């Protein structure tokens, strides 16, 4: 297979029919809330598009994002996307290792300078001059800097790359930072989630291939088509929330009847993602459907927001000790003020 031929040629070689291809384009256009005509335009543009070189850099990560993409049911749009790009560097999926793998990355960067897509998963360790996380003796910071120079666009895959994620959780011993904090001169699109939904990654790449631009982003750099609404807004348990029916424990009457998990710490109301509509495992379900509240994994610092099982409206205000001290101070000042007033009254009475 010609590694950098057109997408249409690659699909043909893979035996993917035009019908399947059109279905894929229609599904993606629909998911991204594009007008119906966009599906045809997408199919036309994609068929003719040159397969772009893609370099996938793994930094401080758990490989969950790659697992998410590759372990999705087959055949899927996610598999098809691999026919639309030329994945020139991906440590986990590579057969090559060591110097050979690094040489492939350097060659792809050189041959496609200014044109390749850079995908990053994992946060970047900046502590100790980047020494916490190195690949082939090169620190993540240095590798990102070099790779970003020739990238047409950068996609931060997963919450670690997008917002720092778990490595950045307090006390952040490695100085973990998100990609966008280090790359300022290139467009960075955040596809957050721990892991992100595979079709969201696909959607972003197809949008880029079709229109040559990045999709519309929210204030956190995420594509609005997938991160425009909260989990809560589209949750099938929402009517129970509105009716005031809540599960109190994970095995009570409410939980068995599918009532809202708000009281059990669900972060759906403040989490923007498409889990409730796109779902996981080939559209089987999503965490709330499986009986567990949303963790808010597609939001910045989700690990440090006071606990997964603590209900959303509860405060994170530091406990009773400070309030006890404030109370003691209030009593002392109040007593002192009253004593002063009594003294003044006594002085006035004496004068009389």
């Amino acid at each position, binding site marked *: 297979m010609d590694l950098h031929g057109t997408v249409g040629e690659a699909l043909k070689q893979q035996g993917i029919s035009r019908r399947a291809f059109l279905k894929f384009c229609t599904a993606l256009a629909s998911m991204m809330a594009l007008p119906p005509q966009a599906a045809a335009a997408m199919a036309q543009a994609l068929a003719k598009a040159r397969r772009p070189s893609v370099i996938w850099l793994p930094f401080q990560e758990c490989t969950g994002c790659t697992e998410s993409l590759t372990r999705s049911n087959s055949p899927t749009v996610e598999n098809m996307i691999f026919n639309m790009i030329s994945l020139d560097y991906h440590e986990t999926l590579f057969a090559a290792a060591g110097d050979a793998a690094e040489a492939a990355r350097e060659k792809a960067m050189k041959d496609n300078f200014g044109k390749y897509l850079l995908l990053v998963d994992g946060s970047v360790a900046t502590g100790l001059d980047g020494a916490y996380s190195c690949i082939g003796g090169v620190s993540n910071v240095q590798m990102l800097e070099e790779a970003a120079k020739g990238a047409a666009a950068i996609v931060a895959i997963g919450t670690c790359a997008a917002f720092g994620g778990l490595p950045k959780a307090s006390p952040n011993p490695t100085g973990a930072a998100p990609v966008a904090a280090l790359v300022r001169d290139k467009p960075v699109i955040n596809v957050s989630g721990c892991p992100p939904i595979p079709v969201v990654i696909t959607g972003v790449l197809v949008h880029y291939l079709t229109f040559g631009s990045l999709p519309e982003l929210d204030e956190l750099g995420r594509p609005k088509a997938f991160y425009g609404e*909260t989990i*809560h*807004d589209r949750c099938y348990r929402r009517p129970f*929330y*509105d*009716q*005031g029916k*809540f599960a109190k424990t994970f095995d009570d009457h409410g939980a068995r009847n599918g009532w809202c998990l*708000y*009281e059990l710490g669900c972060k759906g*109301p*403040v989490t*923007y993602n498409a889990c409730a509509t796109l779902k996981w495992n080939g559209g089987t379900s999503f965490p709330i459907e499986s009986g567990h509240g949303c963790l808010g994994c597609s939001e*910045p*610092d989700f690990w*440090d*927001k*006071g606990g997964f099982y*603590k*209900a*959303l*409206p*509860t*405060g*994170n*205000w*530091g*406990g*009773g000790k*400070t*309030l006890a001290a*404030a*109370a003691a*101070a*209030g*009593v002392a*000042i*109040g*007593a002192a*003020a*009253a*004593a002063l*007033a*009594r003294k003044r*009254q*006594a002085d006035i009475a004496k004068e009389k």
Partner: protein
Amino acid sequence: MDLLSFARGPALQYALIVFVFGVLWRLIGVFLLATKPDYSEPRNRASWKGLRLIALRFWPRREFAARNAATHALGYVFHVGFFVVLLFYLPHLLFLEDLFKPLFGGNLVQLTGMSWPYVSGGVIMMTGAVTVAALVALLVHRIASPVKRLISNFDDYFSWLVTTAPLVTGMLAFAHLGAPYQTLLSVHILSVELLLVWFPFGKLMHSFTIFVVRGVTGMSFERKGAAL
């Protein structure tokens, strides 16, 4: 740190510190004041009977009942509405339950086996709307009435603002109107914190002193032989 984490975290902590400190300062400062000696012959030695005033003042005196009926009714509507919204909406209960945990050494519901009832969000929204309408009507009346306008100061208007703001922002958050939900929720929590910070230093302190003042006044009236 995002706005919601700030509102739920340090802002809430400082607001609670100011609230607890301020309320105790003012209460202790007032309660420990020396009372003036009353040298007159008491008309009635059983002055504790004056405590009846605490209950009697729930209704206006007959002479003023008709003239002030609307003001009284609206006052009741917004007070009751405010407490229904505060005490019968599940997110608020979860917040309060968590807040009082250190005081009771655990979750009160789990410790006692009792549960506090709550109503659906729709009912709370309607109650909130009626409460805000009553508050707006009272503000309009305050401004329109020459006498009330004359005796109103910054404290009255600011206390009105910090009371109304949590209701309005809470309703906006519930309805997801005007901004992303977490922004609305943050603004709602911050508005509650503004209320907490202002509370000890303005007329809202009447919440703690009203029944004590009624009792003391009633006992004084009883001693002097004045009609309650």
